[in-house]
């Protein structure tokens, strides 16, 4: 069979296309990938996997991800962005809401978790149902009670927007807008949300020191909390039942994912970093203040549940004074350089639903 003539034609067209794109005649600017260095903060462990190994971190990819994170077009009503429920000033949790507001005045059934240090997480969501940072955004985007969209529709809207075609080209080399590229760009932004500059971190680096109550609180933390909320990430990312009653949504947590009865009522241990800002607490936001959280662990654990974590079988004993010292320590985990970092802020004002 003679392949030469069709190949000649194809090669001619192909070479022409290459030359045209090199000549920037699509009016969408150039491919400008500026590598970004992602550093492990001092004292932090190496992440379990390198989330950027197959998703090269660049300034252009990060900025595209940032724009997408705050983009209302990812939702059915055009104004419910990721940033609507993950607010920077609340360490990317939903400020003061137990449950979040989705499209059509709907409610989610879980509390929006704070977003930071996601590169160290193996699985995402309270039940760990998501196995990779790149595919997480599909869940809220497509859920009827969150952003309520379809993937086709989101891509259709992005493709119509010249600004996106320009940014996809800058980040990926050509203006094609695909689900994979959108998700990889989002992962470049969310994976870059690193919080490692609280007073606690400064003390560890020798740049500051705890006052007396904070120091006592740190000792109390180590004695009572550190088994699950392990330093320096302040979580071990395990799934545990911490003695909360089954909620009105009959949310059984991890069991829903694993299918194993032994995982009933287990939820992922959240980080204590920025805990002062990420209230309300627990998977359904049922506890509105930190003192009440500590009272739960002191007094209210339901010990009849067969899957209750063995560590919590033994009562946690704290005096009121110790409770306050512990609180002072927890406040040292607040990282305002993270919550006020302009690189993580919305590039333009967005709607936040209250």
């Amino acid at each position, binding site marked *: 069979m003679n392949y030469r003539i069709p190949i000649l034609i194809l090669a001619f067209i192909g070479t022409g296309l290459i030359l045209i794109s090199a000549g920037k005649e699509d009016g969408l600017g150039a491919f400008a990938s500026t590598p970004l260095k992602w550093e492990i903060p001092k004292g932090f462990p190496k992440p379990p996997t390198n989330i950027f190994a197959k998703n090269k971190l660049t300034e252009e990819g990060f900025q595209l991800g940032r724009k997408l994170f705050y983009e209302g077009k990812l939702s059915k009503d055009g104004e419910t962005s990721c940033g609507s429920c993950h607010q920077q000033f609340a360490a990317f949790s939903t400020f003061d809401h137990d449950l979040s507001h989705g499209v059509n005045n709907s409610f989610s059934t879980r509390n929006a978790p704070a977003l930071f240090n996601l590169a160290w997480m193996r699985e995402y969501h309270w039940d760990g149902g998501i196995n990779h940072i790149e595919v997480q955004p599909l869940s809220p985007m497509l*859920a009827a009670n969150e952003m309520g969209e379809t993937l086709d529709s989101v891509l259709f809207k992005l493709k119509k927007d010249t600004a996106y075609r320009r940014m996809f080209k800058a980040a990926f080399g050509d203006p094609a807008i695909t*689900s994979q590229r959108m998700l990889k760009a989002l992962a470049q932004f969310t994976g870059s949300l690193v919080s490692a500059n609280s007073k606690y971190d400064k003390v560890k680096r020798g740049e500051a020191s705890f006052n007396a109550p904070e120091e006592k609180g740190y000792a109390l933390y180590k004695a009572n909390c550190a088994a699950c909320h392990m330093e320096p990430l302040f979580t071990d990312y395990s799934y545990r039942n911490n003695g909360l009653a089954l909620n009105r949504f009959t949310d059984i947590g991890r069991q829903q994912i694993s299918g194993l009865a032994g995982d009933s009522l287990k939820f992922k241990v959240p980080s204590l970093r920025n805990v002062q800002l990420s209230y309300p607490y627990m998977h359904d936001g049922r506890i509105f203040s930190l003192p009440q959280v500590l009272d739960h662990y002191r007094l209210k654990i339901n010990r009849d549940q067969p899957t209750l974590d063995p560590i919590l079988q033994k009562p946690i004993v704290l005096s009121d004074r110790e409770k306050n010292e512990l609180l002072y320590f927890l406040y040292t985990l607040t990282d305002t350089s993270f919550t006020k970092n302009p690189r993580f802020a919305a590039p333009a004002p967005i709607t936040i639903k209250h």
Partner: protein
Amino acid sequence: MNKAKLLLLTVILSGLIALLLPSFSVPAASARLRVHFVHTAAGKPLLQDSLYLNPFNETYSVSKLKYYVSNWHPGNKGSCFLINAFSDPVISLDIPPGQYESISFLLGVDSVHNSSGAQTGALDPLNDMFWTWNTGYVMFKLEGVSAASKSDLNRIEQHTGGYRSPFATMRQVNIVFPAGEKMEAGKTYDLNIEMNLDKYWKGANEIRIAEHPVITKPGNLAVMVADNFPGMFSFKSFLSH
């Protein structure tokens, strides 16, 4: 550089590429195998939205039938295709030349591709075969209607998936060539594989529509369905050109 020069350069480059390409572009070292999945139910060709009787005498029709076939052997490790029974039942493989007694594939998506982040092509979540709340691909999707179904609108909605032990649902399928088949380099062959839906309902396990009209998550039920997968596929015919 002006346009005339660009054009000239393009022509020269094209010529050079055309001279070089033939040695790379013709898969001279491979045989081309077109695999056709021929879907049947109750001994008849499966047509969309037509009525059939399953082995339990339940009437049903199928509106959607999609499944993944991946990791073809020989010579196609890592390959992945999405079969749509009503629009896209044919795939094309490059096979190393040789004498073969069988060909095999994985019904479903392997665990690596279930846990490697955002994918493209057959695995693009746009194909509507991806669970967003419990990451993983639907390996096999059958939707339709049956009078035997007690679910809303008498629907059948069976999405079989799950890649984690002990609820993994991908299954190895082996297609035996009764007389052995020789495939030569540069030639094209057609393999017809029958996919018999009767064996989907009644194989290693019995899946009655009345009992299980809806399956939408990994677990024991999905594993029961998956155990029927290998028995559904069989050799139908092989043609060389």
